[in-house]
């Protein structure tokens, strides 16, 4: 703005120059962000007011105003209706209402359409355009769909400004793209640049004098501008309404930020692109399907139905739609015809010509694809029949498209179509100036066949052509062409070639002059000039429309051109009265009238004549002057005879005439004023038009926002519930350590009250012993964002918590404070302690018992064994594959182990087996495996203990062996005893002797057997003990007994035989010699000879000479002999004097 102030001499800005400009902002999904960005830079001190139209959920309270107010210095408020828009304010649309503006006052509107079809942005923009004209600006921001695209058309049409968010910066680019694709957008900007652009644009407007200056310069250069456009684009806009043209050119100048129109003209000449842009701007108009649907319904009844009904089979119904723009109207009509034909079950050939001068629009029209939102305009019954959905848009079905031929054609420049049944030209004429309108209507008259129909826009009229187009329905602007012969619009001939250079301004063109130009064929001209009676065609008011033949005798055309226009004024005396009368009568009666015996008086003479008035069909009257006799020249005298009465009449008539002329001028002026009023009314109406073209599309998209808010509300309530109900003590502090939030459960640690929110955590007392550490950790987390873990307890040492301090981050990841979460672990710690004790005890038990613990997982086929277990298995600690475990078992035991494991796994049979570990040593390690199936937490496994039973196993086998040996010996002993008994029985009949002997022998055997129990006897028994045992029964005898010898041993195998032999010798000695009461001496010696034989000597020294005696009892000596042979030895007995000597020589042997 400063720049502008310097460029132009600063005009004093009076208070009424501060014209408020209203910026309408349309946004939908993703709009909030864009609006914030856009408005955050807006200053409250320029003359801009903002109205935000956002798609809002009607059932949901809007937070938009609240959210925006934080972001901008402007005053933000939600509209309640009735606010006068003032600068520096932002007005927000309330939910469930539309918004419109009237005389700068906001009004709430009810939605007519159902949700999903509403287009509040279009609605508002259109009302804004109408109300504020070029002081309306529209901004279209992020959103899906196409709402706003129709509205911006209206803004543009009324000279307003249109800005669209750069689709690349939009979260949802549907609305911006759709708006941009209209080709009507002035600026595409990032949100942050939008306000600046608007400010710059209105810098001109806000200074009234500059504004007026530009307007003036535009109106001066308009012909040149039109000519440049005509040269470049080939279309002449000079006939268009000047006010519209000036407004639109002025807009371009403002958009380009230029000083005046001459600069713009310069730019226009140098830049063909600008020509194109201006052309497009000039052509802005609003169209939609079935626009003014009630009028279409009327058209259907009065035109379409009869046309279809009355059409013969080979007839073609021809329809022409000039100015079809993007084709909606053409398709509407085509659908109307197709639908009617369908209802009447007729197959009629319908040809629709749709023309426009804008090739770009025609392209859109031919494609026949429109935004989904436009579908709402098509009556429900026709939607499915005549449209197909395509990528979020819809296309008109080809059957309808084939009915229409789109072509580039100018109504006023190109030859018209002919023999047309219906011309629909809606909202085109309102852009035309009077002259162009007057050109277009005859063309329509020519094109439409007699009794054909003309269908105009609601604010258009047939104007002065009401004599050829009679209204059928005035409301709907449906007219019927009269029966008159079509007249080819002559001006079309060669017009292009004639026209060069700047044209006159249309305002100076007067309509009647066009009529005087009407010409007929040359020969007819000649005929009427030369041979026909003089004729004159006049209107009912007496206005001369056309003349033929020599009328000089009847009329005087010498006056000024203004009075020459009316027949009575120019008629000569004698003619005037008749002409006036006959015109009045003819207009009334519409019949041929003759006035006879008239005399026309001129300066030169008199001419008798008859005057015939012939009413022509279009309301005009043809006057025919038929001469009744020769012309009689006047004598000189006649001048003198002039009746003074004549002079009086003459002066009266002159006076009357001048009065009439003044009246006429006044009427004309009134008519002009009326025309102007009408045209401004038309303009108003056309502005109103755009109000109707609404777009309802995007409110569905808004559901996204709504659902987000819903989610947020739910999440918020979840959160507050969580805070209220959780048993988890939690505090949130902000970056200055002030308490932001906490859960109720925190009171066990910090005695917070609700009022403590906002107090620094450092000031609050706590039950924690480590309060300082907690505060320090929190500080650290706030500083670096790294989480901290602490274990804290209360001062009594009763409770313990695990504290996690984490950084608190806002949604955009900015760190702003910390969260302290306490988890009570008192019980967990106690449990842990108890568990550890239990574990230690168990471990100790296992260690002492040497038990290993194993666990088998059938799924992974692994066996986990603890340390002692691994030692037993001689495997590494940890888990080993089941296969490998099986291999530690000896080959023979493997199958059994596997079977038992499987059985335990499958059937849950308890496991208890003993097996040997594989290995080569003579000693196998025996292992016992005990366990059972444990189920839990989805998996089943085997759990048990393993221990080494090698020692037990060996002890058992030794015991068994010993038992077997004992049994054997017992049996042997019994055999011997039984043998002894039987043998003894054979040798004596004396029972008591038998018993004594056997008893003595068994005792001897038993004593010697005792010896074997006294100690380790692997090497045999000492000789001395064996002999001593044999002599034991005689130790109390008085006899002298000695037994001496080297420490030789008697083997276990030899013991029985040796004992028996010694027993027999001792028995004999007791019976017969030294061991009885007779006295004597016994010496027993033993020695080992060099050849390994042992020699045992038994010397009995008797007190008397020994008598040679027989060998006592026979059995005794048998036993001695048998024992000796058992010992593998021999016995000799020598007797000399009182010595009785017995010698045993034997070979000691070990059992093989």
């Amino acid at each position, binding site marked *: 703005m400063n720049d502008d102030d310097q460029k132009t001499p600063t005009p004093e800005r009076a208070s009424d120059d501060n014209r408020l400009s209203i910026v309408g902002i349309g946004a939908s999904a993703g709009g909030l962000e864009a609006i914030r960005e856009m408005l955050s830079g807006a200053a409250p001190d320029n003359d801009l007011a903002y109205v935000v139209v956002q798609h809002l959920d009607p059932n949901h309270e809007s937070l938009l105003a609240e959210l925006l107010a934080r972001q901008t210095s402007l005053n933000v408020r939600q509209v309640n209706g009735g606010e006068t828009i003032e600068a520096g304010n932002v007005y927000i649309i309330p939910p469930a209402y539309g918004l419109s503006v009237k005389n700068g006052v906001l009004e709430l509107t009810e939605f007519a359409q159902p949700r999903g079809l509403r287009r509040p942005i279009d609605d508002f923009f259109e009302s804004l355009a109408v109300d504020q004209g070029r002081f309306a600006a529209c901004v279209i921001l992020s959103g899906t769909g196409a709402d706003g695209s129709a509205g911006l058309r209206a803004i543009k049409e009324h000279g307003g400004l249109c800005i669209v968010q750069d689709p690349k910066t939009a979260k949802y680019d549907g609305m911006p793209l759709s708006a941009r694709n209209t080709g009507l957008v002035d600026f595409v900007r990032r949100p942050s640049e939008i306000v600046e652009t608007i400010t710059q644009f209105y810098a001109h407007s806000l200074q009234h004098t500059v504004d007026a200056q530009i307007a003036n310069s535009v109106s001066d250069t308009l012909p040149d501008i039109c000519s440049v456009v005509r040269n470049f684009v080939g279309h002449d806009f000079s006939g268009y309404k000047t006010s519209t043209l000036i407004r639109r050119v002025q807009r371009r100048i403002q958009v380009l930020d230029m000083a005046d129109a001459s600069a713009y003209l310069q730019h226009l000449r140098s830049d063909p692109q600008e020509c194109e842009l201006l052309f497009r701007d000039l052509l802005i108009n609003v169209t939609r399907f079935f626009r003014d649907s009630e009028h279409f319904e009327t058209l259907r009844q009065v035109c379409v139905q009869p046309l279809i009904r009355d059409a013969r089979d080979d007839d073609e119904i021809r329809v022409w739609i000039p100015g079809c723009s993007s084709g909606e109207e053409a398709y509407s009509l085509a659908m109307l015809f197709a639908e009617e034909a369908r209802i009447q079950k007729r197959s009629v050939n319908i040809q629709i010509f749709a023309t426009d001068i804008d090739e770009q629009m025609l392209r859109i029209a031919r494609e026949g694809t429109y935004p989904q939102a436009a579908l709402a305009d098509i009556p429900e019954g026709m939607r499915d029949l005549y449209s197909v959905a395509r990528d979020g848009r819809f296309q008109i079905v080809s059957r309808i498209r084939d009915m229409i031929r789109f072509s580039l054609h100018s109504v006023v420049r190109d030859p018209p179509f002919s023999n047309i049944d219906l011309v629909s030209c809606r909202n085109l004429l309102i852009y035309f100036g009077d002259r162009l309108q007057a050109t277009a209507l005859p063309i329509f008259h020519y094109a439409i066949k007699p009794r054909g129909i003309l269908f105009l826009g609601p604010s258009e009229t047939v104007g002065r052509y009401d004599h050829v187009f009679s209204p059928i329905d005035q409301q709907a602007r449906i007219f019927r062409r009269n029966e008159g012969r079509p007249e080819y619009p002559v001006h079309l001939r060669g017009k292009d070639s004639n026209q060069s250079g700047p044209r006159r301004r249309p305002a100076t063109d007067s309509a009647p002059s066009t009529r005087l130009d009407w010409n007929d064929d040359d020969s007819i001209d000649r005929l009427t000039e030369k041979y026909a009676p003089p004729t004159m065609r006049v209107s009912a008011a007496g206005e001369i429309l056309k003349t033929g033949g020599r009328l000089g005798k009847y009329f005087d055309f010498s006056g000024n051109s203004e009075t020459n226009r009316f027949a009575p004024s120019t008629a000569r005396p004698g003619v005037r009265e008749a002409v006036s009368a006959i015109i009045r009568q003819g207009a009334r009666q519409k019949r041929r009238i003759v006035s006879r015996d008239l005399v026309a008086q001129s300066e030169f003479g008199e001419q008798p004549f008859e005057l015939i008035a012939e009413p022509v069909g279009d309301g005009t009257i043809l006057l025919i002057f038929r001469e009744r006799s020769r012309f009689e020249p006047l004598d000189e005298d006649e001048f003198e005879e002039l009746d003074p009465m004549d002079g009086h009449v003459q002066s009266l008539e002159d006076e009357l005439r001048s009065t009439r002329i003044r009246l006429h001028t006044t009427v004309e002026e009134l008519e002009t004023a009326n025309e102007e009023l009408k045209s401004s009314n038309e303009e108003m109406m056309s502005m109103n038009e755009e109000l109707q073209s609404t777009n309802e599309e995007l409110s569905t998209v808004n559901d996204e926002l709504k659902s987000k808010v819903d989610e947020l509300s739910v999440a918020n309530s979840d959160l507050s519930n969580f805070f209220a109900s959780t048993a988890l003590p939690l505090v949130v502090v902000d970056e200055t350590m002030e308490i932001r939030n906490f859960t109720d459960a925190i009171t066990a640690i910090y005695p917070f009250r609700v009022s403590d929110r906002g107090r620094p955590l450092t000031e609050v007392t706590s039950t924690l012993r480590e309060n300082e550490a907690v505060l320090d950790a929190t500080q650290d987390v706030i500083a670096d964002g790294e989480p901290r873990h602490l274990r804290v307890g209360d001062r009594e040492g009763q409770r313990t918590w695990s504290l996690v301090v984490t950084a608190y981050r806002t949604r955009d990841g900015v760190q702003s404070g910390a969260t302290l979460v306490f988890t009570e672990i008192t019980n967990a710690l106690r449990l842990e302690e108890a568990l550890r004790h239990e574990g230690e005890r168990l471990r100790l038990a296992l260690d002492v018992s040497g038990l290993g613990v194993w666990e088998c997982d059938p799924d992974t086929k692994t066996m986990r064994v603890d340390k002692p277990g691994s030692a037993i298995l001689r495997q590494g600690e940890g888990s080993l594959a089941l296969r490998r475990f099986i291999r530690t078992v000896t080959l023979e035991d493997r199958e059994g182990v596997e079977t038992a494991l499987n059985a335990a796994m499958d059937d849950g049979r308890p496991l208890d087996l003993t097996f040997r570990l594989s290995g080569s040593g003579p000693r196998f390690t025996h292992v016992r495996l005990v366990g059972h199936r444990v189920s839990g937490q989805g998996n089943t496994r085997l759990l048990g203990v393993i221990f080494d039973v090698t020692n037990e196993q060996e002890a058992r086998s030794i015991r068994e062996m010993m038992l077997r040996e004992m049994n054997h010996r017992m*049996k*042997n002993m019994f055999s*011997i005893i039984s*043998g002894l008994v*039987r043998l003894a029985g054979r040798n004596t009949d004396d029972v008591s002797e038998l018993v004594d002997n056997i008893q003595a022998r068994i005792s001897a055997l038993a004593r010697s057997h005792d010896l074997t129990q006294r100690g380790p006897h692997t090497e045999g028994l000492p000789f001395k003990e064996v002999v001593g045992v044999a002599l034991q029964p005689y130790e109390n005898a008085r006899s002298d007994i000695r037994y001496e010898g080297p420490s030789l041993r008697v083997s276990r195998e030899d013991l029985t035989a040796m004992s028996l032999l010694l027993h027999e010798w001792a028995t004999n000695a007791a019976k017969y010699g030294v061991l009885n009461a007779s006295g004597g001496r016994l010496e027993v010696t033993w020695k080992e000879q060099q050849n390994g034989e042992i020699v045992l000597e038994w010397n009995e020294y008797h007190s008397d000479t020994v008598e040679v005696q027989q060998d006592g009892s026979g059995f005794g000596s048998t036993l001695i002999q048998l024992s000796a042979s058992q010992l593998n030895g021999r016995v000799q007995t020598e007797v000399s004097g009182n010595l009785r000597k017995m010698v045993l020589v034997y070979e000691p042997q070990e059992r*093989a």
Partner: protein
Amino acid sequence: MSNGTVLICEDEFVVALDLQMMIEDFGFDTTGPYASVEEAISVLPGNLPDVAVLDVSLKDGEVFPLADKLQEQGVPLIFHSGHVYDHEIFERYPGAACCQKPVNMALLQDALMERTAVRAAS
């Protein structure tokens, strides 16, 4: 008239003498008693007995090498043992008899008569 010759193997001299006298009382001729396997085997050629009464465990080991030889020659066997169970013997020497120590006279006599009778009949 002798009922036949009985080979006796027994290393315990008292038992051997008892057996010998008992068997002679039954009306058999005896050969032995032998205390070792080696000794008994050495006398076999040319002196094949009609039946043999064998202690399992002898001085120089178990009697089975001798028993095998005797079985080959078709000599019926009667085992006189303190520590060998019947079924082990029956498995190895089908048709053999077992007389547990200490010997039961009647059982031994029956076994001997039975063995020699079978032998005479065949």
